[in-house]
């Protein structure tokens, strides 16, 4: 894997993972961003998770092991990076009426644990939402600051989940950093003005990987003492088609959890899984630049499970 700066990469605009449009598309750089690359070519970066059948990460792959097709046309991989690029984690917490009291406190503890698991180069941003979207703390590496911010989280109200996902997707756009968005929610939306279709389209065009941590509860069945999801909660366990599609299209997943689960461990595992992923860079060739590009990524090694986003929007 070569250092990324050797590539003249311009990662642009909204279609972060893939969005490659042109130099004039760059209008703003965050203060910490390195100097602008002078692009002669357009490059696409793709986050790829490769695991064995026991879900353990496989970390010894090279560019030769990957097969990437863009709209069905095999591409030449310019660069492979593994677990090195800094990560921005956006955590979205549902603090509506459905997540209050002890549940909210457990949530705070979980996020604090996640913040402690970050490397120095990584950052975390915390957004809470009910009817309103509210950023509690902007991207920060200061775990203590995150912990402090969590003590002042309001609770109650409706749930504008789709609106919040949209804002998180748009805001998670630093081209030099990998973007992970983790939403903790019961899956309900009662207050968004953004339609699910629009939100899904925005997710496809964004750079970030989106994972949903969704809760369900278990109940003890009478007589047997066995424990299994209650009927109502079986339904809660089923993620909405929209959220499942967003997770799938962005290379993320839906993680159902019992609310008694250790949220800290859950969040840490999501972060570790994301970190132990490859980033593939390629310069599309043989395909029309505009429109949506379907990407397929495969690994020429038996017994591997490959997860990657399904495409990017070329403008």
């Amino acid at each position, binding site marked *: 894997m070569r250092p990324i700066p050797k590539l003249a990469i311009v990662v*642009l*605009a*909204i279609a972060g993972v893939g*969005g490659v*449009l042109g130099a004039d*598309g760059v*209008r*703003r750089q965050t203060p910490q961003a390195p100097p602008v690359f002078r692009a002669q070519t357009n490059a696409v970066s793709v986050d790829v998770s490769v695991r064995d059948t026991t879900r353990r990460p496989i970390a010894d792959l090279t560019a030769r092991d990957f097969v990437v097709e863009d709209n069905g046309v095999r591409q030449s991989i310019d660069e492979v990076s593994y677990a090195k690029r800094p990560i921005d984690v956006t955590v979205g917490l549902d603090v509506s009426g459905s997540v209050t009291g002890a549940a909210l406190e457990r949530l705070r503890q979980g996020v604090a644990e996640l913040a402690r698991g970050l490397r120095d180069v990584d950052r975390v941003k915390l*957004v809470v939402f009910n*009817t*309103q*979207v*509210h*950023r509690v703390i902007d991207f920060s590496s200061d775990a203590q600051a995150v912990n402090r911010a969590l003590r002042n989280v309001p609770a109650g109200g*409706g749930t504008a989940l*789709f*609106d919040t996902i*949209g*804002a*998180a*997707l*748009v*805001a998670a*756009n630093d081209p030099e950093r990998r973007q992970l968005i983790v939403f903790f929610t019961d*899956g*309900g*939306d*009662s*207050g*968004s*003005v*953004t*339609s*699910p*279709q*629009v939100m899904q*389209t*925005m997710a496809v*065009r964004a750079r970030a990987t989106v994972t949903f941590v969704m809760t369900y509860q278990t109940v003890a069945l009478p007589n047997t003492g066995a424990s299994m999801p209650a009927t109502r909660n079986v*339904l*809660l366990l*089923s993620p*909405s*088609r*929209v959220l499942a599609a967003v997770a799938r299209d962005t290379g993320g997943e839906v993680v159902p959890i019992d609310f008694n689960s250790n949220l800290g461990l859950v969040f840490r595992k999501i972060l570790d899984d994301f970190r132990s992923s490859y980033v593939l860079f390629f310069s599309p060739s043989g395909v029309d630049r505009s429109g949506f590009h379907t990407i397929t990524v495969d690994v020429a090694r038996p017994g591997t499970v490959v997860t990657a986003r399904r495409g990017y929007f070329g*403008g």
Partner: protein
Amino acid sequence: MTPRRALGAVCLTVGAVLAQAETPQPQQVPPTFTANTDVVLVDVSVRRNGAQVPGLTAADFELRDNGVKQDIETVESTAVPIDLSIVVDVSGNPDRPWENLPSTAKVAADLDAEVRKLVALLRPGDRVRLFAQDTYVQQIWPLQPASSAPRVERVVFDGQSSLFDTLTTVLLQPIEPRRRHVIVAATKGLDTISAVTAADVAAIARHADAQLHLVMLEMDADKDATIRPFQCANMDLCRPTYRFWTPARHRLFVPEPITGGGAPLHTLLADGASLKLGAEATGGALYQGAMLAEPSLFGVFRHAFDNFRQSYVLRYSPKGIARPGWHQITVTVPKNKSLKIQSRTGYNVDAPTPTAGTTRPSRAADAPAPKLETMADLMEAYNRGDYRPVEAVFDVADAGKLIKGFEFTSGMNPWPGTMRGEAAFALELAGAAIFSRPQPIQDAGRGLLQRFSRLIQPTFETDDYEHVWLTTLLALLQGRLSPSLAEPFVERALVRFPNEPRFLLARAIVTDQFWRGFGTMSFGDRMTATEIPIKRADLVISRYQAVAAASPELASEALIRLGWFLYRVGRVDESLKAFDAAPPVPADTGMEYLRHLFKSHVFTSQDKLDDAVTEARTAHTLIPDAQSARIALMNALALRGDATDAEAVAANIETAPRAADPWWAYWLGDFRWYGDARSALRGMIK
């Protein structure tokens, strides 16, 4: 005797009626009086050995109002026209196992014959109306000149007995100035289904501007009482088969069998005694029919009518006493203490309701706030207008327990003479309950609302109070976002006010609430927009269209809501047409905001991103701090490829302080007016 407003047309209280002489006088009222203060009229009956005493003048009477002697300005007699309310008892015998009932025609004909005789006693200028009490209060005819009283063609009979409800209804009938309201009611002495109690009736009577004469038909009651033992002994019919359930048995009297034959005497029970006191407080009486030469309505009325016609009407302008509150009246004829004087015992004047621009006197700063520890405390505070402490209790207390306490104290509240205060209080209490989380408390709230939505109904025609109460209720229920809870109340409101546009809009909104949002969660009671059955979607659409057609005032809101619904079910082109068809509502910035916000989202869905940005910016301009316009703008910019601008908007969304957003209130419908409606309701309690 009836204190009543002499001039002017607005009653101040249920009972006593005062007049402001400065009030423009109705044309039919002779300009006799020129007093500058309130005027009170009091009916007084003066008898010697049972016979009316004629020829008395103002100088003969002494009248004290709250103990202060008053100057009697005039004394009139027999000149005031009468409004007569006749109440007949056509309820059935709940104990009889079997009975061969007469036909409706026969019952109606007998009733008509009796009423004809009674109406014949009235004079030109008098008016009459006829009620029949059965399971429901029936008004056979409304108030009309006696000469034009129609025949009794039909009557529903043989049901439960709603005596107390019927008397309450009749006592609360509005009275015109310078007319006297006389009620003559017959009863077989049993109430089985009323919502109010005999004590309530008595309390209402004390404050009512009517004279109540009540006759007990003991012989009919005795006959009813003997049927069952007779049929049991002779026909082997011992179990009542007539009704499976009788809600209650409130008897006014019981017979005392007399050995050796003869008609039994009858002893008043507590309910009978209450009604007797209530009737006497009005200047009327309770008669035991067996003691009358003519134990019938006609006999009672002739007896009462004679007294009434020969009574005096004293007129005075209260001086030297505080105006608000209960006024105790005593009337005497000092020169002859052997005369029997009968008049009503007093009247009430409510404190003026604070109006805009005035403030209620606040409690002294160092005075401790009264503790609201019991339901009686809460109701008293509510009655005083101390609403905030009551609301604070409702916010934190167990509303289920409060409702139990409220129902337990029924009839002991500060509003015995009117349902208004109790109904307003009940609505607010039920509001706290339906917003509670435990289902049993919600159910208790719903039950309370169901009960009072019936109790607040005037018997025959709707009135302003019922309208405001229902308006407040529907606003509250829309805010609850539970369409299955709200739907029956909306339908009931529309039965009472079929063409009320705001109720029609409430119905459309509640139907829409079943699929609020985009319904993308496929669990619970939510459904995806595309899963809405076509018929149900058409129902929502037709209901919004009906509002738009019925009310220019609400057309804009209805069409904008219709447009958003059409968008959510995928009928995008029709959606835009609806938004554009909605008349401008410059006075309602929130509604204009929603129009542009929604259009922005529709354009975004059509990939018309320039138009979407324009509409979002327009909405943002209208209400700059609202989040939803920023969301719309961010979406459109992001999809248009303006990543940096979109990112800046996203950052703004995440960091902006919380501010009012019309979108957040969208699904709450008329709940945004709940505060106004509640204030109006509170203002009508008096």
